[in-house]
């Protein structure tokens, strides 16, 4: 591995070989930064009160939007005030101290404290910013559910923001773990928002449970960190690492210390939906779309990337750790992209695309470019949010219709122009079209894979290039199908909101908008624009017409699209840190513990076919992306029948028949997991339950108990529950005890002789 991957690795001699990175120190006077945590909690409280009062106003949404907006402002102020990394103590949480037998003092500390460096701020800026915008979007999107559901939704969003802030800002691994599980819980809450729908309940459950598998890895990694370094606080941990504690630990701790990076990785793969734990994310699309955009695309799923970037120095504890991250990321990117190519549900395609893009980020971490990973997180957050929110607008307007075969030519329909073109921008970014934000961030990763040197990294570079082409193809497959081409649609059969209140009889209403004059549809949309939604009266007849998004949705779409485009600019801004190229984001990374993962200038450089990878990649990846788009154009816009013919030809070819089917069926991964893990455990549960009932309880216990049970029959008169009998019982008990005590010496002596004789 090491020959394939000339990595930064800690040697047993203790030389870290890592570049220095700034470590935070406690700072006073920043207590107000705690507002970033408390504001979402306040909002939760407010939403809870709204839930109790059962208000049907939009109050919960406004409470949430204002609180999150203020949290964003607080983050921005913090950003301007913090240069050197600082630690802000809020209150004591888990604190133990003790003296050992030998009199040494020991302790365990994990406080509610914030570790604020530039990496923290980078993450918090887009988490709170997008959180605010998406809450605003949801205020309209969820308007059909006003009442308790509305409050429940925004309470969930608030919980999520609180947990995510803990995750990113915590100054120790336990607070990170709190956030880690907290976002998992918020995700459970929101995926299961439509709790009367069994599929939503199942998806929520699956997300929580699969995440818990990763969480166990993280927890064990945390324990191992503590038992190796004696602290779970970043400050102490980084100081120890920099002082060569890693080398020392490797000398003494053996394999268990080397397991640290792999356990942390397991946690990261669970939360960020990587192989083998990615299966929950596509199902998570059961949640309302704003949730998918916020949690399952932009913010929560990047927590794994954050974890590995934050703890990058720990990843060097085993030479195979970073290559493992890179390979898992690369393979996940490929697998998810192939699945995404064959799906028909546009929201699911976006979900697989998220999995795939997260794969890129891990690939970036694995080849040592924390900057590339962080930058891709940053750009992806915006453009994927755009894509999800436009999908949501479509779903909202077409009664849950998400099948790209049943939607077409959206951009020709009145009221859908903004949606169509913002989606186009999102698609361009995702496909890595030249000069978009996604183009630069993806290039940073692919180029680094080539320039990293070594065969393994180069192979991953090629893999990433292929996936870039696939990405461009499936992205534009969606856009060409849904937004371009002749206008045509079929309504979905689903109504958000109180499904008991709405008749399910809306049905499919196939037809051409030609049949619905513009005035009709437009008027329909206009009628709703006033109250930015459609309240409770969204039943029967309305279901057959699409209604275009209202002001809140369009506004948010435009703002986030602008952000997605502008996210390319930081690449050209000065990093503000000497010797660090790569723009503003690189500067943000350089100010944190992830700086250890910045490529050292003039380090080992591989080439891309003899060229400088960073320069060559601008051209090569652009070309690959354009090819993907061209193929999508040919198959899904110019001649849509060609796609069906291609599929038919593949299905007709016995040697290749399996391929499209397997891709559509998601490589049967869910089925395999079910057969290999869930079913055996389920059977085992039943077997154990039977063993418990028959072997342990019936055979062992009841048979042994036969004799005393005979005796017990004598007690049955006590059954009556009379107090006299209880008194009698007590007297008897005391007498028994007294007798035993009196004759104990003799008994013991007897016992002693018996045992002595017997032995």
């Amino acid at each position, binding site marked *: 591995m090491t020959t394939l991957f000339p990595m930064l690795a800690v040697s047993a001699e203790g030389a870290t070989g890592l570049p220095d990175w700034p470590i935070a120190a406690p700072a006073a006077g920043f207590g107000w930064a705690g507002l970033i945590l408390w504001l979402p909690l306040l909002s939760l409280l407010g939403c809870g009160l709204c839930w109790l009062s059962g208000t049907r106003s939009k109050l919960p949404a406004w409470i949430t939007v204002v609180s999150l907006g203020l949290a964003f402002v607080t983050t921005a102020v913090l950003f301007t005030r913090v240069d050197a990394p600082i630690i802000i103590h809020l209150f004591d949480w888990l604190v133990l101290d003790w003296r050992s*037998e030998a009199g040494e003092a020991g302790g365990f500390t994990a406080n509610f404290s914030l570790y604020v460096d530039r990496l923290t701020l980078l993450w918090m800026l887009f988490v709170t910013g997008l959180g605010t915008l998406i809450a605003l979007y949801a205020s309209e999107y969820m308007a059909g559910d006003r009442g308790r559901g509305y409050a429940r939704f925004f309470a969930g969003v608030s919980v999520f923001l609180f947990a995510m802030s803990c995750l990113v800002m915590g100054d120790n691994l336990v607070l990170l773990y709190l956030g880690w599980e907290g976002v998992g819980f918020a995700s459970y809450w929101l995926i299961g928002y439509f709790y009367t729908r069994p599929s939503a309940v199942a998806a929520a459950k699956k997300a929580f449970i699969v995440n818990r598998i990763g969480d*166990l890895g993280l927890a064990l990694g945390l324990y191992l960190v503590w*038992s190796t370094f*004696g602290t779970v606080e970043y400050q102490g941990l980084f100081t120890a690492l920099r002082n060569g504690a890693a080398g020392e630990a490797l000398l003494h701790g053996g394999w268990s210390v080397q397991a640290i990076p792999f356990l942390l990785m397991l946690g990261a793969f669970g939360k960020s939906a990587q192989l083998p734990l990615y299966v929950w994310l596509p199902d998570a699309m059961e949640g309302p779309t704003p949730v998918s955009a916020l949690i399952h695309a932009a913010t929560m799923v990047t927590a794994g990337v954050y974890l590995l970037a934050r703890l990058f120095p720990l990843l060097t504890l085993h030479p195979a750790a970073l290559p493992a991250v890179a390979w898992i990321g690369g393979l996940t990117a490929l697998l998810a992209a192939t699945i995404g190519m064959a799906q028909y549900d546009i929201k699911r395609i976006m979900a697989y695309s998220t999995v795939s893009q997260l794969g890129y980020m891990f690939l970036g971490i694995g080849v040592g470019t924390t900057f590339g990973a962080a930058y891709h997180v940053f750009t992806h957050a915006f453009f994927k949010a755009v894509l999800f929110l436009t999908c949501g607008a479509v779903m909202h307007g077409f009664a849950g219709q998400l099948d790209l075969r049943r939607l077409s030519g959206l951009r020709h329909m009145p009221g859908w122009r903004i949606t169509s073109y913002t989606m186009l921008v999102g698609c361009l970014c995702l496909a890595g079209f030249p000069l978009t934000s996604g183009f630069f961030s993806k290039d940073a990763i692919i180029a680094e894979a080539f320039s990293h040197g070594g065969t393994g990294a180069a192979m991953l570079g090629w893999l990433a290039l292929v996936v870039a082409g696939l990405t461009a193809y499936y992205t534009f497959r969606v856009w060409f199908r849904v937004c371009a081409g002749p206008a045509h649609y079929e309504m979905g059969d689903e109504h958000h909101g109180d499904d*008991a209140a709405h008749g399910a009889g809306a049905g499919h209403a196939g037809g051409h908008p030609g049949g619905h004059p513009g005035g009709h549809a437009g008027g329909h949309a206009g009628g709703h624009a006033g109250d930015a939604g459609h309240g409770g009266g969204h039943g029967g007849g309305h279901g057959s017409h699409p209604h275009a998004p209202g002001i809140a949705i369009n506004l948010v779409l435009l703002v986030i699209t602008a952000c997605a485009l502008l996210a390319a600019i930081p690449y050209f801004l000065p990093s503000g840190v000497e010797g660090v190229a790569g723009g503003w984001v690189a500067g943000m990374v350089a100010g944190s513990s992830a700086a250890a993962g910045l490529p050292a200038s003039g380090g080992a450089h591989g080439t891309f076919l003899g060229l400088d990878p960073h320069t060559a990649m601008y051209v090569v990846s652009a070309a690959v992306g354009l090819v993907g788009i061209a193929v999508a154009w040919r198959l899904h816009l110019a001649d849509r029948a060609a796609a069906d013919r291609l599929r038919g030809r593949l299905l007709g070819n016995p040697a290749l028949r399996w391929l499209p089917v397997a891709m559509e069926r998601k490589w049967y991964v869910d089925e395999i997991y079910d057969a290999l893990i869930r079913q055996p455990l389920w059977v085992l549960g039943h077997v154990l339950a039977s063993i418990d009932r028959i072997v342990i309880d019936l055979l062992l*216990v009841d048979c042994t108990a036969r004799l005393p049970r005979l005796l017990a029959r004598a007690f049955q008169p006590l059954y009556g529950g009379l107090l006299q009998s209880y008194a009698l019982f007590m007297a008897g008990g005391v007498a028994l005890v007294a007798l035993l005590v009196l004759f104990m010496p003799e008994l013991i002596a007897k016992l002693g002789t018996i045992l002595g004789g017997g032995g």
Partner: protein
Amino acid sequence: MIASLLLLLPLLGAALIAFGPAGRRDVAGARAGSRTGPRWIAAVCTLVTAAVGVVAAMQFEGWRDGSFGLHAGVDWLADLGITLNMHVDAVSLLLILLTLLLMPLCIFASFSAITARQREYYGWLLVLQAAMTGVFLARDLVFFYICFEFTLVPMYFLIAIYGGENRARAALKFFIYTFTGSMLTLAGLLWVAWAHADRLGTWTFDIPTLTAFAQSGLSSGEQAWILLALMAGFAVKVPLFPVHTWLPLAHTEAPTAGSVILAGVLLKLGTYGLYRFVLPMVPDAVVAYAPFIAVLAIVGIVYGALICWVQDDVKKLVAYSSVSHLGFCVLGLFALNPIGVQGSVLYMINHGLSTGALFLLIGMMYERHHTRDMNRIGGLARVMPVWSLFMVFFVLSSVGLPGLNGFVSEFYCLLGAFTASVDAQTGYPGRLGPWYAAFAGTGMILAAMYLLIMTGKVVFGPTHLPGGHGHGGGHGGGHGGGHGHAGHAGHAADAHGDGAALPPDLTRREIGVLIPIALLCIVLGVRPGLLTDALARPIEQALAASAAASAAATVARPQDADTGGGASGHAEGTGDDLPRADAADATGDVVRERVRG
């Protein structure tokens, strides 16, 4: 003096109830007002006792330094040194406070469920409270044992009279099973007392004296036997795999308050016994057998969790979850380091709160729908939103969501076990290690599975209620008066139509019962320091003996290959060679040799 009040007040209440009025037999009448019935006597009595408990907690001076306080007592059988002495330290006082909190809540929760034979019911509950308090208060071994056993009697009647269909068998099994185990425990404890009398010439049953004597005065072989005897009773009570089968049965059949007290306090008598007697009295044996007991705990965690998964009866599911959860508690205890034991003691409290609340909630559901079968009832979120909110909350607390109480204790237990290796970071060398925590940790995943599956069925999903009661929101009480309590207390001849008296969602009384527990769950999740600071010193003292034994054993034992380095160095053996615990079969021989020698 105040300590004896804690014991006497409930007894006084029980006496008042025994000789007081019988109480109205229908809920409707009782709702209207009569505030003199047994249940109000019981409620007032437990509330007053709780208030006294709060005063006692404020008077107690050992919160920080780990000393014992609130001494009280009288001599009883002076010749034998048997007294009725009482004292508390932070650990026992916290458990008393837990008892004092849960009792009034149980009584208020029983208001609508128990309408027949109220006198006995509330009387026995108060007697039970006195017995449980006595266990934690006792400073005298005999006193301890009497209270310990006496908890069985009221619980027996509570299950046998007010339980479900299978109540007779459950009550009997509960009684016989735990009684048998405790007899062996008694033998073990008496052995210690006898050895003390034999070697020092005076009889005493003073627990601190005996503990101090046992640590040093007993040979390793004797310790092993005593450990076995003590474990026999305490492990049944906990319950530890494989002596747990009484628990699901008793839990399922017991009335709601009975289940709450069983889970909340009675199981803790077992872990408290382990903490108070096993750890300090027989340290050598504890160190030797810690891995063996830990393995049993881990088996219990996984085994209980997998069985939970396939249950249909919600109450049985929560009952088996206790087997799984208490496994964590025992694991933390036998980590033999401050983190693990802190976690374990916290676990006693936290499990009492969250599982107690789950039982309360299931009782509330049962009172309305008369079923606990997950296949027959589901989607309650629509019908009972407030109930569902509490249900999800306590499920999360039970799953160990960080920020709530369950997480802290589970985290400490696992961390304790994880670091309990020979060269531990804690300075307390132990016999467990990372693998123990890794296997026990799977219980975290499984707990999420079975509890969320249960939530998914009962709380979420499409609404369906037994008896074909409609979908959608607003159906009323749902049950005509005729429903009565047929399945619930079928023996009660004077069936009563209280189903209609309960609204579909929780009443104020029921919400009032749940809110204190919920608040504590949050407070203890956010500020566990409130407890851990107070527990630090007593736990250090409880661990002192086993730590010394462990250190000695570490030095004496040749280095284990799998635990890595660290323990080398000062290898002047102290001569105290312990029987190796992984050779459990061989230990018998070792012990026999020692007895002879």
